[in-house]
C-alpha cells in the first residue's frame, strides 16, 4: 500500500498545470485491466481528475519518455519519479538525452510495486478486478475473492530495492529515503557458483522463451538510441525476430553489453517481459563485475560521472585474470 494517495498527486499535477509551470503531465492511467497501468500524457485538468491513477501497479519508469516528449513540448513537462526512476533520469542527463530545463520533476515516495504474476500465482487465472487498499483485493470470474498483502507480492526489483533516495527532483513529496543495503546480487552469485553446464542449461531454458517482442528494449531507459543497432542492417546484428536460440543469446548479450555501465538496474526489462525471463540477471552481472573489477559504481547516482567502460586505470584486471579464484 502506497503511503501517499492519488489525490495528492492529482492536486499537484492540476495546480502545476493550471499555474502554467508545466504544459503537460506524464502520469499513469488505467489500461484494459485494473492491474494494467500504463504511462500517459495528460494535458487537461479534466483528464487528470478522471483518469490519473496511482496505486501498487504504477511500476512504469517515465524517464525514458522525456527524451521524445521534451523535443516536442512547448513548455515544461511534469514528471513523477519514484526513487529508482531518478537514477535513470540522471543517467539520461549525463548522456545529454534531454533538456533538464524542459522538465519539472516531482519525487514521490514508493513502498514498492506489486507483481501481477505473483498475485496470479495465488488467485489463479481469470482475475476480473483488483482493488488496491490496505490490502489488495482480488476478484476472479469464478467468484473467488482474495485479500493479499502487497508486501507478499512485490516485484522482484522492489523486493531487492537498492535505494529509496531520490537523486534528482525539483520538488519532493513526502519524506526522503536513503540508499539501502540490497541483496540484489545474490541471484547472480548463485548462478556464478553453478557449473558452466548448469549455467548454460539455466540460460538456455530462460532465453529460449524469448519471443523477441522487443518489450525489454522499448521500455529500457538506457535504450534511447536514435537508431537501435538491432534495426540497423549495417551493424551486423540486425534481426527482427528470433531465428534460433543463438540469435536470442546474441540479442540479449549485446543489449546487456550496450547498457553495461549505463544500466541503473531499474528492473523495467524484467517487469515488462511477457515471458518472465529474468533479464535483470544479465544487467546485474555486469554491474556486479564492474563493482568487483573497477570499484563500486552506480549509474545515475550523479550527473556527469564517467561510465566504467569509458574509463580505465593502468592497473585494471586482465581478461585472463577475471576467472582467477572463481572455480570451474
Amino acid at each position, binding site marked *: 500500500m502506497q503511503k501517499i494517495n492519488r489525490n495528492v498527486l492529482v492536486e499537484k499535477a492540476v495546480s502545476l498545470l493550471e499555474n502554467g509551470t508545466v504544459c503537460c503531465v506524464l502520469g499513469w492511467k488505467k489500461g484494459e485491466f485494473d492491474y494494467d497501468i500504463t504511462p500517459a500524457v495528460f494535458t487537461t485538468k479534466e483528464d487528470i481528475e478522471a483518469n490519473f491513477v496511482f496505486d501498487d501497479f504504477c511500476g512504469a519508469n517515465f524517464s525514458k519518455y522525456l527524451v521524445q516528449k521534451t*523535443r516536442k513540448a512547448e513548455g515544461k513537462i511534469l514528471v513523477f519519479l519514484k526513487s529508482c526512476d531518478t537514477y535513470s533520469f540522471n543517467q539520461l542527463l549525463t*548522456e*545529454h*538525452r534531454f533538456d533538464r530545463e524542459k522538465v519539472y520533476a516531482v519525487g514521490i515516495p514508493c513502498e514498492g510495486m506489486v507483481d501481477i504474476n505473483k498475485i496470479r500465482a495465488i488467485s489463479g487465472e481469470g482475475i476480473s478486478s483488483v482493488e488496491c487498499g490496505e490490502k489488495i483485493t482480488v476478484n476472479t470470474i469464478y467468484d473467488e475473492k482474495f485479500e493479499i498483502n502487497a508486501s507478499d507480492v512485490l516485484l522482484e526489483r522492489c523486493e531487492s530495492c537498492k535505494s529509496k533516495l531520490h537523486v534528482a527532483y525539483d520538488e519532493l513529496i513526502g519524506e526522503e529515503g536513503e540508499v539501502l543495503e540490497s541483496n540484489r546480487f545474490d541471484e547472480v552469485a548463485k548462478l556464478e557458483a553453478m557449473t558452466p553446464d548448469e549455467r548454460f542449461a539455466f540460460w538456455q531454458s530462460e532465453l529460449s522463451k524469448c519471443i523477441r517482442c522487443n518489450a525489454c528494449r522499448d521500455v529500457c531507459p538506457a535504450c*534511447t*538510441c*536514435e*537508431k*537501435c*543497432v538491432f534495426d*540497423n542492417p*549495417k*551493424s*551486423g546484428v540486425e534481426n527482427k525476430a528470433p531465428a534460433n536460440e543463438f540469435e536470442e543469446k546474441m540479442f540479449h548479450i549485446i543489449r546487456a553489453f*550496450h*547498457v553495461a555501465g*549505463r544500466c541503473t538496474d531499474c528492473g523495467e526489462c524484467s517487469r515488462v517481459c511477457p515471458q518472465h525471463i529474468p533479464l535483470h540477471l544479465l544487467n546485474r552481472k555486469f554491474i556486479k563485475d564492474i563493482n568487483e573489477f573497477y570499484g563500486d559504481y552506480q549509474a545515475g547516482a550523479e550527473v556527469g560521472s*564517467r*561510465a566504467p*567502460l*569509458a*574509463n580505465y586505470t593502468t592497473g585494471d584486471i586482465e581478461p585472463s585474470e577475471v576467472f582467477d579464484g572463481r572455480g570451474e
Partner: protein
Amino acid sequence: MQRIGVFVCWCGTNIAGTVDVVAVAEALKKEPGVVFSANYQYMCSQAGQDLIKAAVKEHNLTGIVVCSCSPRMHEATFRKTAAAAGLNPYMVEIANIREQCSWVHKDVPTGTEKAIILGKAAVAKVNLNVPLTPGESPVTKRALVIGGGIAGIQTALDIADAGFEVDIVEKKPTIGGKMAQLDKTFPTLDCAACILTPKMVDVAQNEKIRIFSYSEVTEVKGFVGNFDVTIKKKARYVKEELCTGCGACTEKCPMKKVPNDFNLNMDTKRAIYIPFAQAVPKVATIDADYCNMLKNGKCGVCSKVCAAGAIDYTQKDEFISEKYGAIVVATGFNPISMDKFDEFAYNQSKDVITSLEFERLTNAAGPTAGKLLRPSDGKHPEKIVFVQCVGSRCDACNEKGKEYCSKICCMYTAKHAMLTRDKYPDTDVTVFYIDVRTPGKNFDEFYRRAVEEYGVHYIKGMVGKVIPDGEKLIVQASDLIAGKQLKIDADLVVLAAAIEPDKSARPLATMLTASMDTNDFFTEAHPKLRPVESPTAGVFLSGACQGPKDIPETVAQAGAAASKVIGLLAKDKLTGNPCVAQSNEMMCNGCSTCERVCPYGAITYEDKEFRMPDRSTLIRRVASVNPAVCQGCGCCTVACPSGAMDLKGFASEQIIAEVDAICK
C-alpha cells in the same frame, strides 16, 4: 557492385613454395565482385605492377585485392600502383599470404586452403571499400636526435647543414659516445679523438644545433611531422650558461674516490667532474651520489673555487617540451656484461679485461696515460691473450650470449694486437679466433698485416677456461689446426665481449611505438630498401641501435638517416591518414561517450538542426570528428552505443564481412 581484380603473388618461392598460387587465383575468381584474377612471380616488381595497371584499365576494375606479403611491407606500393592506374588508392586490400600463411605453414594443401580464405576475406572487404581522400597536416621543421655518439653527431651535422634546426639529447654529460673512449680506429689507425673531437666542436658551434646533455627523453606524443617531446634535463648542479669549463672545481673537490665510468671504473674521478678534456659541452657535472654537499650539506668547496659562480646545489630536474617534425634514434651500444662468462675469470682476476677496457688502457688520456700496464700490479704484460667471440654467435638456447655476430670485434682485436706489437715489440700476442671476419674495405689487408708484419699469433680455437694462478693467468685453449689443447701462461687476457643495444633503447622504443627485434635492436621499415627508417613514420635510425656497426658504417648510416629527415622536413605539408572516424549524425545520440574515450581530443559536439519527416525541424546535439587530429584507432566506434561512429577503411561492415568470409 564492385569490379574487383585479384592478383596473387608468388614472391618467388616464398609464397609459391607452400601455396598453390594458381589454385588461389582460380578460387578467388568465383568470389562475388571478382571479374579478373591473375598470378605473377613478383607483383611488387615493375612488371607485376604494370600487370595490375593494365588489368585495371582493361577490366574497368573498381577494387584490387593483392594476395602477397604483409601489408606492412607493400600496401603502400600497391596503393601507388592503383593510383597510377587512376584508381583510388584505398580501393586496395592486401591478403597477407606470406608472413601469415606460406611462411608459417608447412604443406601446400594447408597453405593453399588458408590463402584462399584470406583472399576471400580481402575480397569481402574490398566489396565494401569506398574511395578515401587523405587530409593534410603541417610539418614542424625541426629534428630531434636521441643519442650524441658519432651516429647522432653526424646525423645532426648533416641535418643542420641543410638548414634545419636540430636538437641532440644525450644522457651523458658530454656528447662523443663510445668513439670518444677509443684509442685508434681501424683500418687506418687514425686517432679516434683526432677525428671525433673536431666534429664535436662543429656541433657545439653550429647555430642550428642545440645540445641537451645530461638529458633524457621522457615522453613522446604526436605523429610524423608533429611530435610533442618532453625532455628531462637532469640536475647537474652546475649552471651550464655560466660554467667556463676551467676545471678548477674538478681539481679542488675533496671527494676523490668516485669510480670513473668514462675509464670503465679502472680509475677514479672527483664528485664534480668533466668527463674528458674535449668534452662538449665543456661543463662540470656533480655526481649527486657522491657529493658531500648534496648528501649532507657539508663541503661547498666547488662553489667557493668557482669564479663564474656556476655551482647551484639547489638545481632541480627540468622538463622541456618541444615540437619536432622528425626523430632520429642514435642510442648506440654497450659491451655485454661478462658476469655470466666466468670461465674466463673476468670476476676472479683484474687482469682479465674487456676490449673496451683495453682501449682505455692504451689511450693516452686513459688511466695509465697510454702505457699498457696490468690492472692488478701495474706491471707491463709480457704475454697477452685475446679471446674472440665472447658472448657472440651463441645458440638461441644458450642463455648467456647473443645469437648474432658483433661484427666489430675481429677488426678491433687485430688493431689491438697490432698496436701492442708496434709499441711493445717484446710482448707476445696471441689471438684465439673461431673465424676472422674482415669484409670491409682494407680490412683483410689490415688483419694480414697484423699477422705477417707484426707477428701476432692467430690460433684457430676457443679458450675453454682461464685459471688465475698467482700472478699468471693460465689460458686453457684449443689449437684446432695443430690438434692440441694448449695451456698458456698469460699476463693479460682481453675478452672481445659481444655488443648489445643500450638499455635505454627499449623504453624509448615504447615511447616512440617503434618496433624492435628480440635482441632490442630497432627494426627497419624494410631490411634492404629502407634500412634507416623505422616502420613508425617520422622515426629514423642511425648507428648501432639498429645493429652492430663499425664507425664507417655508422657514419654512412647517420648521413643516410639525415637525408631522410631532410626529405621529410623539406615538405610543407604531409598528407594524413584518411582512415579516420566519422560520425553518422542521423544516428548519433549526442551522449558524449566517444568524446570521453578519444585519446586525441578529436571529437567535439555541436547542436545541429535536423529536418524531421514531418517537415518540422529539430535541434540535436551530435558528434563531429576532426580528421586532422583523429589518428584512426577506432576506440570511439566501440564506445558509441548507437553505432553512429564508424571508422573509414575499417568500417564495422567491412570487418564483419571479413569475419563472415573467414567463418564461412
